[in-house]
């Protein structure tokens, strides 16, 4: 069985993939379907959903189109989620590989730094970082990556510790390869799969962290974010609950989709490994 077919035979993986596909479609089509500023005032304020078909999901407190905001918010969520996860994985993999392969003092120092980061809750770290540096998209990505790189680093290090004793690594040493070359060309690629398996969890967590930061008013105020939309809606929760519920549902489905698709990938690769 090919990997793809195995993936497609896992129902949760398919569900996750569909959700993600929809999300990507939303993010990519946002500028086509809703050109211009999604925060522009489009109609009367607090229009409930399904009343006016030019504004199908209604409007918020200033009369901005909720559907347009939802599509543009998908962009921010995905961009932050993917960028933060990529940054966390890259930092984590590099640090973990260096620590594991070099051993000794380098290992000690890098892992104690990782410890230091792990003792502070990731969200708190992100919160402190953004409030000091000031909210913008890049800062939010960096803040989230700062709190999440330790997980991949530890896993990469553990993998590298076992891989570096393998024969082909010894072989590479014998033919005179530079240790850094061995670490990043021979060891890291083989240590990567378990690290990548964490990516879905990290992406999901990054999307949630970004939403939480925006909810607390620490997102980029010039960009639509789902967390920001939920926070805006909170002030009118009793009179216009849809303003918080709509982006809330979008957030739940996105995180669910990322997670299910990630699980599906892990499962298919795990089965393949088990069989081989």
């Amino acid at each position, binding site marked *: 069985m090919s990997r793809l077919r195995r993936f497609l035979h896992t129902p949760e993986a398919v569900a996750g993939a569909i959700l993600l596909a929809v999300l990507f479609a939303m993010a990519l089509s946002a500028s086509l379907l809703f050109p211009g*500023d999604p*925060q*522009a*005032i489009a109609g009367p*304020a*607090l229009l409930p959903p399904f009343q006016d078909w030019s504004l199908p999901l209604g409007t918020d*407190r*200033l*009369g901005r189109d909720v559907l347009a905001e939802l599509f543009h918010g998908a962009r921010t969520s995905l961009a932050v989620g993917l960028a933060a996860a990529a940054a966390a994985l890259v930092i984590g993999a590099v640090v973990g590989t260096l620590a594991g392969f070099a051993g000794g003092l380098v290992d000690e120092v890098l892992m104690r730094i990782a410890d230091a980061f792990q003792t502070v809750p990731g969200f708190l770290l992100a919160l402190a970082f953004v*409030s000091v540096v*000031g*909210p913008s998209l890049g800062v939010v990505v960096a803040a989230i990556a700062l709190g999440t790189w330790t997980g991949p680093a530890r896993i990469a290090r553990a993998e590298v510790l076992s891989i570096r004793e393998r024969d082909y690594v010894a072989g590479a040493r014998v033919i005179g390869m530079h240790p850094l070359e061995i670490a990043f060309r021979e060891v890291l690629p083989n240590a990567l799969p378990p690290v990548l398996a964490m990516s879905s969890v990290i992406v999901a967590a990054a999307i949630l962290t970004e939403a939480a930061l925006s909810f607390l*008013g*620490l997102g980029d*105020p*010039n960009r639509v974010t789902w967390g920001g939309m939920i926070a805006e809606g*909170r*002030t*009118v*929760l*009793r*009179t*216009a609950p849809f303003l918080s519920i709509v982006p809330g549902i979008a957030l739940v489905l996105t995180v669910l989709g990322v997670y299910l698709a990630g699980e599906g990938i892990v499962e298919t690769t795990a089965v393949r490994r088990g069989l081989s």
Partner: protein
Amino acid sequence: MSGFTISRRTMLTGPAMLLASTAMPTLGWAQTPKKGGRLVLAADSEPRNLNPAIVASNGVFFISSKIVETLAEASFDGKDGLAPRLAVSWEGAADGLSATFKLRDGVKWHDGKPFTSADVAFSALQIWKPLQNLGRTVFKDLSAVDTPDDLTAVFKFAKPTPFQLIRNALPALSSVVPKHVYEVGKIEDNPANNAPIGTGPFKFGEYKAGQYYRLTKNTDYWGKDEPYLDEIIYQVLPDRTSAAAALEAEEIQLAAFSAVPLADLDRISKVPGLKVITKGYEGLTYQLVVEINHRRKELADLKVRQAIAHAIDKDFVVKTVFLGYAATATGPVPKNDPQFYTADVPTYPFDVAKANALLDQAGYRRGADGNRFSLKLLPAPYFNETKQFGDYLRQALAAVGIDAQLVNNDSAAHIKAVYTDHAFDLAVGPPVFRGDPAIWTTILVQSGIPDGVPFSNQGGYKNPALDALIAKASETLDTAARTDLYKEFQRQVAADLPLINVAEWSFISVASDKVGNIANNPRWAVSNWADTYLAG
């Protein structure tokens, strides 16, 4: 100016302003006042220093005005908009060098000692003038307070001081505290700052941090048969949504200072047993203002400022941001001020085409991306409405080709960015009009104010003609001439736009039908509540 101490609440509510709208009939309830009962209400902040003589701010008054009284209180129908409290009459000398207050007889402090003119002299000279946030400006020329007898206090001024200003300052600035308690030790560290002792209808009971403040009835109060209530409990409910729920569950009987969000008022007004009251805050008017940094060369151009004024749809702001609970503004004095307001000022009706034309004339043509130039916009974080107006202003400016980038800060960072670092192009601020432009309105536009004074002109605006006008008004003693000068002040500000006044708003109370004598003066929420009662 290290003297400007700032707590978040002081900022939020700001010291009160004084005078009321035109003759508005006192709200009458048909029931006769009933004695006894405990009033439970929502409090959204817990001021550390409860001494209103030092911290003249609404957050402090809300609690301590029931304990510590002022010389006079604002009134809808009293002469000059005042009703007597600790003073029974007041008169200014024609030369502006003295003001005489006759004090109420038979008043006792909560610890049993008699109230005398010595207490007034002590409060004025030792606290209002040197320590109070607002008194520092108003009483800056106060040189002595003579006490010829126990019931007469004569304020002496080194320079002529308009009595109109002193009168207008009485309700917010003249809290009298006991000399015998404060003359020992450092005034700022006195334990009575946290457990005030006054002459008011209620005594300080206890304070449990994060839970409640309890005030109990002063059985020795000077007012006949007053107070009616036995107890007032301020239940600390920092979350705004919880106040509405607590009212509906009948856990509290009153939520003042817009503790219930505007968006919920429509729904809650239909709940049987609850009423929404918009009166009783006429003396506490907040102004929604676009602060401008004139150091930016684009903004130093009057045409650009006029264009921004034309780009703002004030009616939309009142209708959408404030849900109708506000009024559009024409200038630096709010419409509901009975003494100084004039409508005869240049106005800027909403007109996008005109705004675009003005910007073209100023030489800022649209670039390829449709933008003329970019600005940094800092909305003050104290109110939901200031933040929402920031969102609106960004859109309104986009419509005329100005790209405004929002920068959100917390309170402390906002104050530092705007008033100390001047790291803004436009800011949205909520100054308070305090009943007299000389108390804290002219400072918003006059030049020569040191960096770091919060809520003052930190936009680098300098207009010698306006500065001269402000200086002249501050030393004009004749009430009519002084009032005319402030009308001219409004015209010049509206013409030259050192800042743009957008709207004026105040607070809303939601109360149980059982609470009587609500909103019967223009500063009701921060008055003494001696006549407030709970019907059976």
